[in-house]
């Protein structure tokens, strides 16, 4: 495990470093072109970046959870989800239970965030809870805890913030260019000579302003894709049941819902890219995630072993190249063969019945979280009233009796 974390750090470090280098280079050229000093440009870029990182480190998880409109739940709200997270915490050997959040959205998705294994959170959508059975949900949760265990959460936050800083600075420079265009050119002309050099500098700065946001975003996505494979491998190892995650990904990717609260910056954090339709090719560079069909194929090629080495072999088989995806240090530290388990003994209830019950449980949970008022009419009908209903009483949908709403 420790080898794995270290190898991850080194493998991912160069991507972070290159994103940072892009930021500094952009700062230099923009400074040289518009502030007459490259150094002050670097200083400015660094200050912006440091401030953004500090905010992200101390409040990134709550900002992100807020942006996703996630609500924290307790064990009594959804005992099964809590149990599954507890199981996976034990399997992965995490030191502390993450907080659990629900996003009320029919699009099935999940993400993990936080600072470190001691302060982390997992969020799932209500659509995910409706769609997946216990084994599948376990696979998804194990994938998210894999992100926490592999320290992806902080890495992705820092990378995301750096990309954000680049985009922000580029945007500011555009404004500066448009608003202050006249003033700058007059100053340049009064300076006299050296016009050719300044023009080249401005050209380079313009190129940076256009290309830096694009390139840094591509690197961010490359980073994100690597981490997805590793989290998939971790999920297989923790659950000892690769089919659980494979079948979950299968179901999730067949959904046509688009997550309302996701955007470009937060997309790489989710288990499945929330912004694109299913079946995108992995070769698409702008994709934040490897193609889902490929991830499923790798998991299903693993056979009866759940070890990292097996995942690596399966990846190479599916991908058809010599390069593996699991860092070498991880493979060295991991045990050779890890027997995977059989499917959990399923309840003998028909799947359709189970699905209906699950849907009802989730609807109950979401309505409770949204502060619906539960009413029970004398005729035996139970129903809930949304919080924005203004009246003092409501007619029972079955018998038509007036039911007073408590507290109004």
């Amino acid at each position, binding site marked *: 495990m420790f080898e794995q974390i270290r190898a991850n750090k080194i493998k991912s470090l160069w991507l972070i470093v290159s994103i940072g280098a892009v930021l500094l280079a952009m700062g230099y050229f923009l400074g040289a072109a518009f502030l007459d000093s490259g150094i002050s440009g670097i200083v400015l870029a660094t200050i912006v970046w440091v401030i953004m990182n500090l905010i992200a480190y101390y409040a990134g998880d709550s900002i992100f959870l807020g942006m996703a409109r996630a609500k924290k739940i307790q064990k009594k709200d959804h005992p099964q989800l809590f*149990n599954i997270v507890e199981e996976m915490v*034990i*399997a992965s050997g995490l030191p502390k239970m993450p907080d659990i959040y629900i996003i009320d959205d029919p699009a099935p998705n999940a993400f993990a965030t936080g600072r470190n294994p001691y302060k982390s959170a997992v969020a799932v959508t209500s659509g995910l809870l409706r769609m997946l059975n216990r084994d599948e949900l376990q696979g998804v949760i194990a994938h998210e805890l894999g992100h926490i265990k592999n320290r992806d959460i902080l890495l992705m936050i820092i990378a995301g913030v750096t990309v954000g800083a680049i985009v922000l600075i580029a945007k500011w420079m555009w404004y500066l260019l448009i608003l202050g265009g006249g003033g700058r050119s007059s100053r340049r002309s009064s300076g006299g000579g050296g016009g050719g050099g300044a023009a080249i500098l401005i050209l380079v700065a313009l190129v940076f302003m256009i290309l830096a946001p694009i390139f840094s975003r591509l690197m961010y996505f490359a980073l994100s894709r690597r981490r997805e494979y590793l989290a998939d491998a971790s999920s297989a190892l923790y659950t000892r049941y690769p089919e659980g995650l494979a079948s979950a990904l299968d179901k999730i990717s067949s959904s046509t819902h688009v997550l309302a609260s996701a955007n470009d910056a937060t997309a790489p954090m989710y288990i499945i890219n929330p912004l694109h339709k299913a079946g995108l090719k992995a070769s698409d560079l702008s994709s934040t995630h490897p193609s889902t069909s490929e991830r499923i194929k790798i998991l299903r090629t693993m056979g009866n072993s759940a070890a990292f080495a097996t995942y690596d072999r399966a990846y190479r088989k599916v991908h058809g190249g010599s390069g593996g995806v699991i860092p070498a240090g991880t493979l060295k530290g991991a045990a050779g063969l890890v027997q995977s388990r059989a499917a959990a003994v399923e309840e003998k209830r028909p799947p359709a019945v189970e699905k209906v019950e699950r849907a009802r449980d989730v609807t109950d949970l979401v309505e409770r979280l949204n502060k619906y008022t539960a009413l029970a009419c004398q005729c035996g009908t139970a129903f809930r009233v949304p919080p924005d209903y203004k009246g003092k009483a409501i007619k029972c949908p079955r018998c038509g009796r007036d039911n007073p709403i408590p507290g109004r």
Partner: protein
Amino acid sequence: MAIIVGVIIGALILLTFIIFFGIYNSLVRLRNQVRNSWSQIDVQLKRRHDLIPNLIETAKGYMKHERETLEAVTNARSAAVAASGKGVGQQAKAEGDLSGFLSKFFALAENYPDLKANQNFLALHEELTSTENKISFARQFYNDSVMNMNNKVQMFPSNIVASMTGFRAQEFFEIELKAEREVPKVSFS
């Protein structure tokens, strides 16, 4: 000249000490991880022991004709409680027996629709299923930790430090009982 040789020897001795304590610390860390993961198993086993009386109490009213199975579960639970703290091997055996009887019980419970509709039973069922899972995941993590520790204790050069400071290889928690491996048979005798 003598000074240089002295410095080199001194540096070598220092280096040996640094390596020695580095290995020693990693052994301590691994041993703590093994102990910690064992206590995790223990917590879950206790939780299971606490849940079973409630389960039997709830099921009693519905499963009047399954007294033998209910008693077998109760007895296996008592045996498991008695075995706790008596070493990894014995405890593993008693808990394995309990797991076997429990899965037999749940298979039988499938035949009682009224029982399966009981909210209390459903909640207990989920809790016990999850506790079973937690036990096996805790065991999985414990065994991984033991393997890491044993590798360190038995492999060169850390085995030298381990034998000098009294670190020993730990026992795996293995449940090699038929009860857990096989699908429980339902008998109506």
